[in-house]
């Protein structure tokens, strides 16, 4: 029985929005797929809890960075598909830049200390 492994990392706070936006740049996805995508690409290190995924998607929609539309999933069920908007892409760029800068800074600290 698979259990959540100890190696799985909690998300760095504030990065979930960025990860979702990044994921959606490839194609419109429904919520489950977004979570799966993030999990798979991070090789199961990052896990997205539903409890934060849907509120986050709601938040992104409210800011106008993501829009949603009902469509049909490959299994034939109705699903809500999320699409990144132009504003979302701009926001993503900004977040990546600041994230990179922060990561760089952390790295510098970690290497020198």
């Amino acid at each position: 029985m698979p259990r959540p492994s100890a190696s799985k990392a909690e998300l760095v706070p504030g990065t979930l929005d960025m990860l979702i936006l990044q994921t959606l740049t490839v194609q419109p996805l429904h919520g489950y797929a977004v979570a799966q995508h993030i999990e798979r690409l991070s090789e199961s290190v990052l896990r997205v809890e539903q409890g934060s995924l849907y509120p986050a998607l709601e938040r992104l929609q409210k800011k106008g960075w993501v829009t949603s539309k009902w469509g049909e999933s490959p299994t034939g069920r109705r699903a809500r598909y999320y699409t990144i908007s132009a504003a979302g892409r701009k926001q993503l760029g900004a977040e990546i830049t600041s994230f990179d800068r922060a990561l760089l800074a952390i790295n510098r600290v970690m290497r020198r200390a």
Partner: protein
Amino acid sequence: MSFLDGLRHRLRTLVRGSRYERELNEELEFHLSLDEMQAEHRGLAGDEARVFARRRFGNVTYLKEETRRMAGFSLIDAARQDLRFAIRTLRRAPGFTLTAVLTLAIGIGANTAIFSAVNTLLLRPLPFREPDRLMQITLVTPAAEGRPARSDMVWSFPKFAALRDAQNVFEDLGLYEETQSSLTGDGDPERISGEMIGGRYLPTLGIAPVVGRGILPEEDQHPDTRFIVILGDALWKRRYNADPAILGKAITLDGKPFTVVGVLPPGFKGLTGKAELMVPVMTRDGPGLAEKWSHEFELVGRLRKGVTPEAAARAMAVLGARIDAEIPGRVGGHWGATARELNGVRVDPLVRRSLLVLLGAVACVLLIACANIANLLLGRATSRRREIGVRLAIGAGRSRLVRQLLTESLLLSLLGAAASVLVAWWGVKLLGAVNPASTLRAQQLGGLGAVVFSSVRLDASAMIFAAALAVITGLLFGLAPALQATRPSLTASLTVGGERVRGAMLRRFASRNMLVIAEVALAIVLLAGSGLLLRSLGKMLAVNPGFDPRSVLTLRMTVPRQSMARDSLPAFYDLMLARLGALPGVTDVGLGNCPPLAGGCNSTEITFLDRPPVPDGSAPEVGVNWVSPSWFSALRVPLKRGRLFTAADRVGAPKVVVMSETAARRYWPNEDPIGKRVGLGQGGFADGATVVGIVGDVRFGSIDSLPRPEAYISYFQSVRQGMMIYLRGTSDPASMAGPARHAIREIAPGFPVYDVLTLRARVADAMAQARFSAILLALFAGVALALAGIGIYGVMSFSVAQRTREIGIRMALGAERRNVLMLVVGQGIALAGAGVIVGLAAALAATRVLRALLFDVAPSDPVTFASIIVLLLGAALLASWLPARRATRVDPTQALRGG
């Protein structure tokens, strides 16, 4: 764009709440099913997979809550929840809810009704074109013999003409005068109110006839030429069946034919507020119009664009001085002129003041009602503190709880407002039934009459007012209890029995005490106001008007101008007096021209032929009344000296006058007036008449003004067309009306008889304005007193309930019932006493605004104040007596054990 996308999203979630909910469920369901599928894929059995997926998924409800909160959904959702909760809570306490809603219904309803009146009479723009450019223009007269200075004197035609030709601040000037005419032909004779108007009167107001035309310029040029009439809408419909063919036909007014040229728009009754027809001022006779000192016309002007009212008033002052120089004043100094905004004189100042006093009073009542409900809510909050404590403990936000409690109070106040519409509707109906002519003394005092009580109605603005009041009151009585109830005192609230919540409770108790003190104080203010008005009314009722109004019927009659030669009038009087005197049950019949207590009628200058002549304009004024010899006995006016008129005092016999006591005292302080020779400026008595008698004073002006000097002339020596007939009978005076009308119709067919009233009713009408304010204010004060009593009762009951154990101990230790009684009652009285002290200070300040409404009572009248204090303390005694009695019934053992 992103902003728009976001906004659209928000709107969607707001507008389609249920759909949003469904979609969220569907989305989560979908997610869950995919999780399950995956688990199955990994080799778990169906059930197990579902359990796993559920576990993995986490708390669905929490998830939904979070997502929903993110969607900004919570506000509306929470409001809906709060509302549902509030409805449930209120339904669970029907007694409380009913009390609160009823209290509010009365409070808000009374406010809405009075507001409607204030709105119609004082606030709403006058129903004329650009009403803010309309001004009333008047003459200013200096104080003269027995008469104060006035700044609202009406115009004579020559003075008006001088003003019209010289002024340049007004675009149009409208001249008007109230008239009474007898309308005969096609139907019963009628006495009709009308206006005699200048040619520019209707254009000045911006009123155009709906049928036909107004007054042409050539009809406004020369006196006594064109006899035309414009009908009012009501008269046109009533008497002429709204027939447009009436145009061009003649109707008979005072025996003369007048050609109908137009019909006025519905609802417009001129600035007098009662005109049923209008005739040009030029239908008057030339000599009458040319009389410089015959002041009778009101004047209204429409300001030129760009001219301010202040500039117009200044211009009028300048012109007034010029006119005075051309036509010098004859009594006591220079005359002037002024102008004021028409809106400012729309109702009499006394009426304005009464209305504002009433508005203040109802506002006080509403405040007391709010305090009372806040009190009830505080009491409820105490009994709900466990519930609230639990909610706080399990993490409910304070703001959310406050919002919930406020929802409850807003719901209460909105229910109250809904119920108040009924109260307001009833109140407005009552106000509409008020007779403006008598109640507002419209005939005796200033004010337009164009806006009257009957036009008061519940309109949109009244509804908005009620709704706004509901919200304000809801917040007012809800906020403090809500804040206090949710003050975090977690552990205390949860402690069983709540004995340790003393601190919080005392605080709550203190604020309840404050509320009761405020209530009592407000009640004192209202009681003081109504007490003063009632006392003033009582003093008015005690005034002797100078005649005996019991069992007297009065009718007015006018001999139409062309129907009878003046020489035959005395014979007609004889015939009529004899005929009416012979009616069964009639003991006395008298004729008089001036009804008592109705503002007074004629006055003129009096000269003394045995004294050196005085300079022009400085002769004293005296009221002149025409009476039949029998008038004095019919009204029981006592003869003080000399004799009354006799049958021998007729035209041709030596002229005689009777003077009133006040006249005798003022003009002959140290002499016997009998036999003195005087000249009166009216009735053909200027060349001299002999004083033959002195009679008691009669108040012709008003009940609350001192009698003026009066002179009486006999109808038989100086004939007049108009008269009021006084019938004194042995039976119910109103029952004489039918036979009297019948008798008059027999001897004088076609003579209009009108204004039939018992003399008692006339006396009552003269005091109607005072009675109106006094009764309404007394009603409000009564409500306030009851509410304050309920407030004291509530607090004392609560206090007794809280102190059950303490009282038990006291009784166990040997306290007598009497001591317990004193303890509780003493506390109630102390509370009321504090309120009385605060209230007295406020009342002494507030009642000063009543000064103008009071007759013979000082605003700080000690008798009134003493009695209201006794009244209020009595109510407080009663209100705390009941809980005190309950306290004495406390069983010590039970109180101690049960604590």
